[in-house]
């Protein structure tokens, strides 16, 4: 079978391409968007459409969802497979989601619950995964000094969401609205396992917020997206994620040496050891492999699912300490394969515990790695994806 793999530069793409090839698929990569982000929709449609005329394939694949690809596949009568690996993905609300040739796989059940009713036969839930072989090879090759350089007590790789936080553009809103939103955001920050923000937004709240947020996001074409959903997930979710990361790092850095690899500004957190960006392919795996505790603080827009980061860390043999996400117990045993916190106090307590109980920590990391290797490699997940996509 031959697949047109539409690439836009997601970190998952190389591993998935390798896995497709290992399964025996012929992969034709379309890479124009990686280098040219400003290509217009119309040009994309023409170019990809023409390409498919000359290079027929059995199906098209992309990470995340591109409405124009869905429309093209609808015309060509070939399946358009997409695996959603992040949230929010606003394109999922486009009317193109209804096309019968879509096979859309969503890693987060909360999003799945929203999107599935729009196209019940073509939308599925599928958690993510990771490959182990390339990283095993990397670790064997790394020198002693490299290993030492990336050995930390507590490590985190990622953004603090503080820069360009879209919520911060809010200007001129009433004190009453600002107070209300601060209240619900601070409350949500304390609660894991249930995202209640959208339920607490009235039409009046949304109306006033939209009026005072310059450049409020509107989906460019016909869609199922509502302003309330946009406000809840894109603006508020993002803001709470920023608050949570800053608060967590402030608390942790008061008690422990914490190393963070981020491009975000950490001057407000002077006790953090900020090493700047980490290279995804050559440095990040070493950080996960060498460090005692690897933190995962899931973005609030991912309401129930396991973010890619958890699989990344586990695949490197790293010890995961993650916030609670409702889908974690469906895939892993908490306390055996990874550690999970449900409050800031617990985060502190677990850091202290696992820094002083090395044998347990190492055993948990090993269990997590083995569990992933047995059940959640890209090979396993993509087999499920392909079987489901071609069943109907």
């Amino acid at each position: 079978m031959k697949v047109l793999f539409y690439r836009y530069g997601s970190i998952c793409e190389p591993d998935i391409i390798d896995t497709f090839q290992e399964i025996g698929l012929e992969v034709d990569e379309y890479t124009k968007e990686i280098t040219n982000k400003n290509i217009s929709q119309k040009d994309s449609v023409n170019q990809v459409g023409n390409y498919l005329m000359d290079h027929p394939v059995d199906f098209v694949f992309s990470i995340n969802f591109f409405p124009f690809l869905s429309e093209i596949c609808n015309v060509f009568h070939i399946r358009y497979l997409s695996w959603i690996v992040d949230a929010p993905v606003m394109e999922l609300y486009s009317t193109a989601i209804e096309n019968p040739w879509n096979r859309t796989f969503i890693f987060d059940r909360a999003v799945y619950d929203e999107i599935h009713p729009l196209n019940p036969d073509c939308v599925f839930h599928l958690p993510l995964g990771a490959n182990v072989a390339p990283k095993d090879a990397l670790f064997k090759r790394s020198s002693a000094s490299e290993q030492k350089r990336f050995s930390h007590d507590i490590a985190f790789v990622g953004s603090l969401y503080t820069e360009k936080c879209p919520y911060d553009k809010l200007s001129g809103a009433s004190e009453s609205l600002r107070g209300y939103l601060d209240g619900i955001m601070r409350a949500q920050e304390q609660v894991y396992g249930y995202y209640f923000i959208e339920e607490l937004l009235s039409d009046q709240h949304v109306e006033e917020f939209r009026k005072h947020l310059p450049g409020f996001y509107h989906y460019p074409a016909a869609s199922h997206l509502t302003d309330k959903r946009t406000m809840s997930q894109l603006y508020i979710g993002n803001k709470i994620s920023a608050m949570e990361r800053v608060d967590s790092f402030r608390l942790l850095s008061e008690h422990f040496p914490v190393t963070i690899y981020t491009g975000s500004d950490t001057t407000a957190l002077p006790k953090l050891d900020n090493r700047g960006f980490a290279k995804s392919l050559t440095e990040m795996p070493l950080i996960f492999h060498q460090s005692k505790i690897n933190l995962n603080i899931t973005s609030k827009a991912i309401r129930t699912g396991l973010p890619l980061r958890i699989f990344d860390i586990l695949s490197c043999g790293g010890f995961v300490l993650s916030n609670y996400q409702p889908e974690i117990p469906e895939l892993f045993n908490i306390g055996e394969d990874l550690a999970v916190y449900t409050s800031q106090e617990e985060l502190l307590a677990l850091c202290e515990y696992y820094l002083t109980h090395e044998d347990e920590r190492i055993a948990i990391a090993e269990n997590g790695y083995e569990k992933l290797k047995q059940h959640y490699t890209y090979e396993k997940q993509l087999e499920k994806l392909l079987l489901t996509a071609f069943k109907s």
Partner: protein
Amino acid sequence: MNILFMDWGCFGKDGTIKAMEELGHTVYKFAHEDYKLRQSASFLDAFYEFVEKYHIDFCFSYNYFPVLAIGCHEKNLKYISFLYDSPYVMLYSFTLMYPTNYVFLFDQAEYLKLRQGGLTNIYYMVLPADTEQIEKLLKQPFDRERVTSDISFMGQLYNEEHNFLDRVTAAGDEYLNGYLRGIMESQKKISGYNFIEEMLTPDILKRMQDAYPFVPDQTSVESPTYTYAKYFIDRKITSEERIHILTEIGKRFPQQCKLFTWNQNTTIEGVKNMGIAEYFHEMPLVFRHSKINLNISLRSIYTGIPLRCMDIMANRGFLLSNYQSDLAEAFIPGEEYVYYEDTEDLMHKIDYYLTHEKERLEITENGYQKVVKLHNYKDCFTEIFRICEIQP
């Protein structure tokens, strides 16, 4: 031994004294008008005289009284107190530290908080209830019509004019008012975890103090946020929740619900306001003759089983309660009582149990039997005396 029983208008007096006597002790009731004061020379004089006259070995009260604690400490007498009210700010008296105190709390969250604060003379105990009173009442004439109902709710609505929180919001700080509304609406979404006090940051606390100043008693050690959280905000949330639930019930089950409450002027469409049901002579009959008895806990009771729940089950009433974690530990949900998760779930369960009589009666009987076997006065105080190392 000779017990001084602090005599005030408390619940459970007769049952408790009877149990203490059955356990071989002699009980002497002591009353004094200054019992609720933080300090009183007059109380102490009367107390010392009483102790000497009756050769008192130890003291007991329901709820906790600092003056009594002071007296017991002076005379090196054990002071056993058993709280059934929450919130109960007098507990935070500096006298709580006295080693002569043995304080029993019915709320595990409160118990843990004080224990983690370093106090070792604090214990957790489920409140006992009287299972015999109802049998006596049934042998005498009573107003059957008045106490019979499909659904009953007995409790305060806390909607008096100029209630505490309204005094804060009347000051007109729009940001504060918005913030308070935000955290209250958020809290309403969550059972099993109360985060209100955590939400009162130093900035918010200052705004509340500016709006409506409140200063703790000079001899008291509670945090400055304690009273605002528990007496102002939790109370307001409870008021809104109870009124909202009763209003919904009035719509979906018109004329099927009776409200027994202090404020006779409150009208809720579809619900009959019956005024007060007297605790000792009428309340047990209401619980026995109502098909469903609702418990909507005061929000300041974080985990504990309100006395109301114990009374309902003790009188062979069917208990339908909001989720409280201590309740789910001491009684089996679905077998000995039923809990609801939100308003919609409550309506569904009311409908179900009104139309499934056999199940309802089974659950009622199971709950009653458990109270008789494990939460009667005699067994409860046997355990309390064992913990306090009181010889029989």
